[in-house]
Structures are given as C-alpha cells and as structure tokens.
C-alpha cells in the first residue's frame, strides 16, 4: 500500500518503522526541518519538509497515488484539513488521524472523517478499567467503547473452573471468543471445558461486563 504520513514525532517515527517492516511504501511529511533530516537518515522512505495541510506539499509527497493518509500533527484543525484535502481533492480512500481533544472524535465523524483516534480517550478508558477491576489482565475498547474485549485468567477457585461453556450459561450478549491454554489457542464450543490457568478472551458490551466478571470470578466485591 502507498501511505502518506504527516507530522507527529515519536508516533510517525515508530509507525514508519513498523509499516516499512511490513513492506508498505510510505512518504513522510514534517514541518520541522531538523526532524525531517532525522527521519530521512533513519528510514528508507522519501521525506518532504513543509506544512502538510498545504496542497502543494501534499502533491510533492505524491498524494495522488496514495491509498491511505495518516495525519498525526499536534493540532486537531490541521489534521482535519489534511484529511479533508486528501479525501476531497486527491481521492485518497482512507484517512486516519489522531486528535488531542477527545471531544473531537465525534466532531470529526460528523465532518466526514471516520477513523479518528484519541490517545487520551483510549488511555483513560484502559486505566479506569484496569484500576477498578484487578481480575482483568488486558482490556481493549472497540468502536468508541460500544464493545469491550477483556482477558481474564481463570484461577482454581473460580466457579467456572472445570465446567463446560454450556454449563456456565453465558449471557446472550457476551461471548468467549478464544481460550489461550499454554501455547495453544482454542476457539471454544459449548462443550469446551475451562481449566485452571486458561486465559479467556471475552467480547461483550460494557454494560454486562460486570455481570460476566461476577459469573467467572464468583464474587461481587469488584
């Protein structure tokens, strides 16, 4: 894929490395000349120095041939304009951006930019969950928190230990999507039996999350 990335320091550096490893063609745009020099030394990719919200800079980066634009500048307004120019003028199919103000996730959606990530929003959500419930090993919020994915490691004293999924009777909206047992991963069926030290990967809407944890852990002091 041809990817154009604009602005951002650690983010663009890290993402460039990871995308190059996956054999994507990337072009970087940054408005700090010294940082451009650093990027150009570090990565095997064309680097354009300039304001990425200006059409002629985007053209220098060959935006016309890009499949994806990623805007990572610190200013939300700049990111909005970069994504809108790329989509409206140059026909780029997919636009991704980060916003510093979490409220702008909704604002950007209403203005036609759908893939918006707010680091503040995501990090706050994760910390809140992990701090509140210590049974959760890992927690990911999907679709702005409409669905959550959590990992729970089963202990011997949990009521679900030794039972099959059918016996446990999960609520309709929640599902155990995968069980990690040692090095194996199992896609469970109703007759799959849960053992101690299994890691359950559970998908559910947030409102029944507490109910699910109670069901698995067997107490409600969480």
């Amino acid at each position: 894929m041809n990817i154009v990335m604009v602005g951002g320091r650690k983010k663009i550096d890290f993402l460039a490395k990871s995308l190059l490893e996956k054999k994507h063609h990337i072009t970087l745009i940054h408005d700090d000349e010294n940082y451009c020099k650093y990027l150009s030394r570090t990565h095997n990719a064309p680097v354009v120095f300039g304001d990425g919200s200006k059409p002629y800079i985007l053209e220098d980066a060959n935006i016309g041939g890009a499949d994806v634009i990623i805007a990572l500048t610190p200013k939300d307004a700049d990111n909005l304009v970069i994504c809108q120019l790329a989509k409206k003028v140059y026909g780029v199919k997919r636009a991704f951006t980060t916003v510093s103000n979490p409220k702008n996730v909704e604002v950007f959606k209403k203005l036609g930019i759908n893939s918006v990530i707010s680091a503040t929003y995501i990090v706050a959500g994760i910390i809140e969950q992990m701090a509140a419930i210590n049974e959760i090993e890992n927690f990911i919020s999907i679709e702005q928190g409409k669905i959550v994915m959590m990992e729970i490691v089963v202990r011997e004293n949990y009521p679900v230990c030794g039972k099959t999924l059918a016996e446990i009777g999960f609520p309709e909206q929640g599902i155990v999507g995968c069980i990690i047992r040692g090095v194996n991963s199992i896609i469970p069926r109703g007759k799959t039996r849960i053992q101690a030290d299994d890691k359950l990967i559970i998908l559910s809407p947030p409102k029944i999350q507490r109910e699910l944890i109670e069901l698995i852990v067997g107490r409600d002091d969480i």
Partner: protein
Amino acid sequence: MKKKDCSYIIVAGCSRFGANIASMLSSQGKDVVVVDSNSSSFRKLSPDYSGFNIVADATDIDELTRAGIEKADLVVAATNDDNTNIMIAQIASKIFNVPKVVSRLYDTEKEIVYQDFNTQIIYPSKLSICEFEKLISHTGTEGLK
C-alpha cells in the same frame, strides 16, 4: 425566538480583522461574543465595544456551546490560522446549523474543503488583487510607463 436578523453573533479569533468586525457590530447594537485563546488579544477591541469576551479554544465544541453557538445567527471565523478557521466554520455550519457562517481564508487552494458546507468565504489575497487592479485602472497605465 429571534429578536431581529443577525442579532447574536460569535466572532472566533480576536485578530485585527475579528476585533474590528466585533467592534463594528457591537456599535450597531448587536449582541457580540468574541472568543480567543489569548486574553491579551482583546486589547484590539475598540474602547466602546460592549459585547462579551471569552478566553477559550474556539475549536472546542463545549466552549462554543458556552459562548451560545446554538442560538447564534452569525459566526465569523476570524483567527489568523486557515485550518482553525476551516474547522470552526465547519463545526458552526454542520454541527450547530448556524444560519450564516463567514470564514477568512488566506490560502485559496484550500477553498475546496468548504464544499458541501453552507459557508461564505472572505479571501484577503483575492481582495488585495482586486484593490490593486482598481488602483492601477484609476491612475491609468500611463503612470507605469
């Protein structure tokens, strides 16, 4: 319920342009609110300006709501930054359905992002060129020869 046409106005950005427009509208008896992230910008307002000042980021929807954008008849995006103006104008017209939105835009190449939005644009660069042409045609081209 509207009192009269264009009676509640939000000016986002207390630039020279924004400050003068706010002062002018205020002297015409309109209710004006100026929003700027820097409190020292308000010194540019004329001494008889009688509207409100709010120190805030005008691209933040909560701050705009606090400034009363829901009942605004006119929003003027007058910051010194094109991208900020574009964002404010789009928020005003698309999210809050403000009946009249005016935005300043220096870079004519960015005009296309205003497509599909009910926004009127002032181009300082185009206006300067028009004025220049007028001056030249008045004095005639003889003066240049």
